[in-house]
């Protein structure tokens, strides 16, 4: 039975707001998607992954005295992680909202 003042609708919204009902799945309410924003974000993701990879490799090399081998390996790993970051940027993990 539908009330005229939209009571059911308001009740449903209130229940959702308080976490009693599961939330209806929304579209991407996510990050701003201008061309500059996406481009800058992608660049930062690649560079930061590269930096972290190179830093880990360099640190391990300093510790183990195997310069430059681990540095080279982790540089490549960092590059792969950068590409993975970009992939995640456009295809988030299944189930994860953006």
């Amino acid at each position, binding site marked *: 039975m539908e009330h005229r003042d939209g009571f059911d609708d308001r009740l449903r919204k209130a229940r959702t707001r308080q*976490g009693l009902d599961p*939330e209806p799945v*929304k579209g991407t*309410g*996510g*990050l*701003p998607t201008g061309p500059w924003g996406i481009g*800058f*974000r992608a660049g*930062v*993701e690649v*560079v*930061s*992954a590269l*930096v*972290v*990879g190179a830093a*880990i490799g360099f640190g391990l090399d300093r510790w183990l005295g195997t310069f430059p081998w681990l540095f080279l390996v*982790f540089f490549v*790993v*960092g590059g*792969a*992680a*950068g590409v*993975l*970051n970009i992939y*995640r940027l456009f295809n988030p*993990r*299944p*189930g*994860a*909202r*953006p």
Partner: protein
Amino acid sequence: MAAEGKTIDALSQFELIPVLGPVGRAVGFSQSNAHMLLAVGLVSLLMLAGIRKRALVPGRLQAASEMFYEFIENLVTGQVGHEGKKYFPFVFALFMFVLFGNLIGLLPYAFTYTSHIAVTLGLAATVFFVTTIVALALHGKKFFGYFFPEGAPLWLAPIIVPVELVSYLSRPISLSVRLFANMVAGHVLLKVFATFVVLLGGLGMIGPVAALLPLSVNVLLVGFEILVAFLQAYVFAILTCIYLHDAVHLH
């Protein structure tokens, strides 16, 4: 100050100068710290003054504080879900601190503390540790399954695990560099065009007319920087929410 010796000096605005005389010099209390305290004070004032009356029909301050509150609350519940409500204070504090840092920095003579990588990396490291600890506390050992997707062939583990690990560790770096780079770039641009105004203005007869051009660019830039200030604070908050979502739901 910028046009001394007819050169463009765009980076001296980011120098840290001790304030409060000898006491500040002794403990390393710079203008950056002073502006952080100012931002915290202004945020507290806004919230305290906003909720003081608790009017049914909100006044201006109350409307502003309610707007910020609802904005972040929608962000947190929208991104993390209802389990995310307990992390609301964390995200709200981060958002307001970054936003006020960006906005205060746009005032003349003010300092932008978000233009220092040390500050943004500190904030991003806090986010990183909080999300990791939340994930560990909620999921225990299962958290490490995050670094190896289910169903992948086991012999790929030596490749996938380091890549996923580096990708996870790169989060605080990208979070901090994004904010830092945006703020630095904006303020350098403002300073460069402001210097053009001064340099062109000294060119005799046509000087003042020519100086109008960089001046109008600067007016546009200030408007753009206000947009960037809001946008970067929003991006910082929403990425924190996304990381919290990953930590809570562990996909």
